[in-house]
């Protein structure tokens, strides 16, 4: 405090002198009076005293600036000098890299017509490691219960580098950018129903791929354009399975040919409206190298629309997601000589499917209890190629009700009407508890 007081005096002195001298100059009043010799001497003494005090302050300041030459000053409350080391203390303790574990855990009960009811559970940690503000490693592992114990699956493991504000480079195993559901909504604390929609999940679109990517976003007027393009190993064409010939195996992590798949997604996001529309695609040659299937090409396309916005009229928030996809595999003849027992089978595998999901949560009603509920409706379906082997066309209608215990913790219940074409129904009751962290 003393130090500050001295500084204050030092700055006050010139002002004081001016204040003192000006009235003395003004002492030349109309009456012609001047400052007396006595007054002049008093002022001179005061000025000399202040000057002396200023010099002593300067000396003290110089001494403080040389810590080796003098002991540390006593603590006199927080100052910039003392706050600065405290602020950097966190960095010293935690290091320069930053690590965080996110993800979710869930437990589900499913009772489906024509199947045995069962409980299941999984733990899905996501490891985020920011080595520098530009370099991030992220990986998700799914730990679930299988028939013979715990199943472990690597969902993604990717390094990304922020090239600049609008471009990011990535390499490794990552979620398929051409499939917006997998990238954004598949996590069960985000997906509002206990199960995922047909076609876009475990269906006709890729989920995780190995390769490199370029992605980012840039403002375009009142909107933001999002883009992601990648080159990856691509899918593998199934040729020897009677129930799946002509379909694509997306888990083709060790490639079966030199051709690489090319894909991506472009989206337009309108923040003020809470809407986004996108288009995804991927093309590849999925056949085994050196076989008659080497020149068969596959092509997929996907369109999506997503909206989330408050609605005063409905006293709540509306959440809408819709995605529809088409895949095509060029015409090919499978088991041409019949040696595999199901040929010759000649067809072009064309499939399509998608979903529409609408959810409503009364976030603006006065009753706290009601604000935690959310109702969901979903329609999803999957069409297979006529004449092709394997799966059956399927259409489902699902009604669900969630109760949110927190922003990422929910208890979900749903009833699903499921009618595979030409088959008895497989309606189901689903219950789920999920916690995101």
């Amino acid at each position: 405090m003393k130090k500050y007081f001295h500084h204050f005096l030092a700055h006050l002195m010139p002002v004081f002198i001016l204040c003192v001298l000006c009235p003395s100059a003004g002492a030349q009043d109309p009456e012609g009076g001047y400052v007396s010799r006595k007054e002049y001497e008093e002022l001179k003494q005061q000025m000399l005293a202040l000057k002396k005090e200023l010099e002593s302050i300067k000396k003290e300041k110089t001494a403080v600036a040389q810590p080796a030459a003098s002991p540390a000053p006593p603590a006199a409350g927080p100052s910039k000098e003392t706050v600065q080391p405290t602020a950097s203390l966190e960095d010293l303790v935690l290091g320069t890299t930053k690590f965080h574990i996110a993800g979710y855990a869930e437990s589900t009960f499913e009772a489906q017509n024509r199947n045995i009811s069962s409980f299941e559970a999984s733990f899905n940690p996501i490891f985020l490691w920011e080595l520098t503000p530009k370099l991030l490693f992220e990986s998700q592992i799914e730990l679930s219960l299988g028939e013979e114990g715990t199943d472990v699956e690597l969902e993604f493991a990717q390094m990304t580098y922020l090239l600049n504000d609008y471009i990011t480079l990535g390499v490794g195993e990552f979620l398929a950018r051409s499939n917006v559901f997998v990238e954004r909504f598949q996590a069960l604390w985000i997906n509002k129903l206990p199960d995922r929609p047909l076609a876009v999940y475990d269906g006709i679109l890729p989920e995780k791929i190995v390769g490199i990517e370029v992605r980012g976003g840039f403002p375009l007027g009142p909107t933001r354009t999002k883009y992601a393009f990648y080159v990856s190993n691509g899918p593998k064409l199934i040729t020897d399975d009677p129930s799946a010939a002509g379909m694509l195996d997306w888990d083709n992590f060790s490639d079966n040919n030199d051709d690489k798949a090319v894909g991506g997604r472009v989206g337009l996001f309108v923040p003020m409206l809470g809407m986004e529309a996108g288009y995804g695609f991927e093309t590849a040659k999925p056949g085994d190298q050196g076989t008659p299937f080497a020149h068969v090409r596959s092509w997929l396309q996907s369109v999506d629309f997503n909206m989330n916005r408050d609605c005063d009229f409905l006293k709540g928030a509306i959440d809408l997601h819709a995605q529809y996809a088409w895949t095509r595999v060029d015409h090919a003849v499978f088991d041409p000589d019949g040696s595999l027992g199901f040929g010759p089978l000649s067809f072009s595998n064309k499939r399509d499917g998608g979903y529409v999901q609408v959810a409503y949560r009364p976030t603006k009603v006065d009753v706290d209890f009601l604000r935690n509920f959310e109702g969901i409706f979903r329609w999803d379906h999957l069409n297979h190629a006529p004449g092709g082997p394997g799966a059956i066309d399927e259409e489902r209608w699902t009604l669900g009700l969630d109760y949110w215990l927190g922003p990422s913790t929910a208890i979900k219940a749903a009833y699903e009407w499921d009618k595979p074409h030409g088959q008895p129904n497989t309606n189901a009751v689903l219950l789920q508890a999920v916690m995101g962290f």
Partner: protein
Amino acid sequence: MTSKLNRPGLALIALVLFAIAGFCWEAFAGPKKTSNAENESSNTGNMQLSGEELWTMNCRQCHNIRPPTMYSNAQWDVIVHHMRVRANITGQEQRAIVEFLKSSK
């Protein structure tokens, strides 16, 4: 040689050229960083959105919003970095959102 340049090959070349162009842009004409949060929030393209608005609009597109107090400043740095990649958020928007989250505690 010509037959080697199939579509994936051309795409790979395009990606590399795109990356090189990005490097050049960053090195010679990239946007200058500012440390002022206010500047960040008013400089996110033409949208003129604050960090809070960007946080709300981007996050709730996919999931419920988590309160700023749920994580430490260091954790928010990593989380928003992760979400910038996942949701194609620009660097300016990322910085404005992080500034908002840290200042909201």
